[in-house]
């Protein structure tokens, strides 16, 4: 009998893991001792960081899409199918495409985040976002015709994908509007849930003076509860009017993960070092789907995939699994249309943002470009 490793979700984490396993367990797969299956509900692989650039017209959504089959090693069985339920006791998955259940010996959940704008009354109708492909395209249209008024970027979801992206958006919008001679006519306000401009105090301390220098207004302790008629009403009792609202909507994992008893709000409770699910045997979770307390970022999913791959290889070979995730996170932060900073941190070491430079901006673009090698497991 071969061991069947099933990876649910072919985004950043799932794809890197599938390729890493194909490489690491190549001989076991060739001798049919191990099978690796990757299940994704879309034949295309989506690279979300591209969406930050779409509203400003510098990248196209297609730049963030490639056929998954082109990225995944041939030794991996790729299934395009939507999983609808997990039964952790029977070690089975149910899906829309298969008649019977899919049996697993080891399951890795890598299903990412979904957006839940409906949780805030009025947000779906009034707010724009660049956290989805369609949202980013619509926002591009809005921004192109926005020549005067109040642009508000409001961080509502917590946790949300890429904690740096809201700062990046206002820095880029400021620069983009200046270059087009419109900044005098557009007021920019950034709102954040807590008393700083970023959850991490080191990043907040670094970003705040840049915002002040560039006349970006800041509202903190600002948690929108309802949006109506051009005004945001918050849990704290404040109000803010806007002409163009760009929001980071509430995020959720998949309901089917909560229904399977794996954790709340669609996130899987895991041991933050081993990434093993806390409420089921033989289940791992990585990337956005795993509740680890580290940012929901592609770099995190990438590093975690390396750890899970090593642990799975040890387990199928009957050895103790020793690889551990140390919280490593890497992030380039755009500070304008042609400058960026960079942070790296882990569970023990706080971030210390690098001085913004054009070189770091090009490094970010190069990192995004080389992503297609990362996904293939080559970088």
């Amino acid at each position, binding site marked *: 009998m071969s061991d069947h490793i099933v990876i649910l979700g072919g985004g950043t984490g799932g794809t890197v893991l599938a390729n890493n396993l194909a490489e690491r367990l190549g001989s076991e797969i060739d001798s049919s001792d191990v099978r690796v299956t990757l299940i994704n509900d879309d034949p295309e692989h989506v690279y979300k960081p591209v969406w930050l650039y779409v509203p400003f017209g510098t990248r196209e959504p297609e730049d963030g899409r490639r056929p998954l089959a082109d990225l995944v090693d041939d030794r991996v069985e790729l299934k395009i199918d939507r999983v609808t339920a997990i039964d952790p006791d029977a070690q089975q998955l149910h899906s829309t495409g298969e008649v019977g259940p899919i049996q697993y010996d080891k399951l890795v959940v890598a299903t990412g985040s979904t957006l839940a704008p409906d949780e805030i009354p009025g947000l779906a109708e009034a707010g724009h976002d660049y956290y989805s492909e369609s949202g980013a395209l619509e926002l591009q249209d809005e921004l192109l015709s926005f020549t005067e008024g109040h642009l508000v970027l409001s961080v509502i979801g*917590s946790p949300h994908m890429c904690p740096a992206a809201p700062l990046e958006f206002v820095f880029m919008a400021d620069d983009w509007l200046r270059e087009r001679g419109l900044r005098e006519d557009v007021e920019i306000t950034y709102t954040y849930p*807590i008393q700083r401009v970023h959850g991490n105090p080191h*990043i907040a301390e670094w970003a705040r003076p840049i915002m002040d220098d560039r006349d970006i207004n800041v509202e903190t302790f600002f948690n929108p509860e309802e949006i109506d008629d051009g005004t945001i009403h918050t849990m704290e009792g404040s109000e803010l009017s806007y002409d163009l609202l760009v929001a980071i909507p509430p995020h959720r994992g998949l309901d089917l993960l909560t229904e399977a008893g794996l954790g709340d709000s669609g996130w899987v409770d895991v041991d933050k070092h081993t990434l093993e699910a806390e409420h089921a045997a033989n289940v791992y979770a990585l990337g956005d789907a795993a509740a680890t307390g580290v*940012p929901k970022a592609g770099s995190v999913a990438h590093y975690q995939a390396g750890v899970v791959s090593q642990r799975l290889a040890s387990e199928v070979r009957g050895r103790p699994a020793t690889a551990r995730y140390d919280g490593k996170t890497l992030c380039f932060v755009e500070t304008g249309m042609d400058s960026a900073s960079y942070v790296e941190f882990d569970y023990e070491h706080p971030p210390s943002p690098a001085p913004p430079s054009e070189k770091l901006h090009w490094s970010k673009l190069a990192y995004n470009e080389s992503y297609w090698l990362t996904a293939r497991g080559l970088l």
Partner: protein
Amino acid sequence: MSETDIEPAATVDARGAACPGPLMDLIGKIRDVESGDVVCLLSDAEQSLTDVPEWAEEAGNELLTVEEPDDHYAFYVVKS
């Protein structure tokens, strides 16, 4: 071990949360629960001792108590 007999509707374990941090996690959970529910936040960040009371006051949510079991804090906040 809990020192109080408050029954939280939800508990957020943000111990070791590197970024964006325990208060962000608490706010996310407060959004999920009903008015009158108690949320318990577990945090090992010193900063939470000032962050959490400050936000609770700002948002009108009552901070019932702060416990200090072992090496972390447990904040009990009622959603207003």
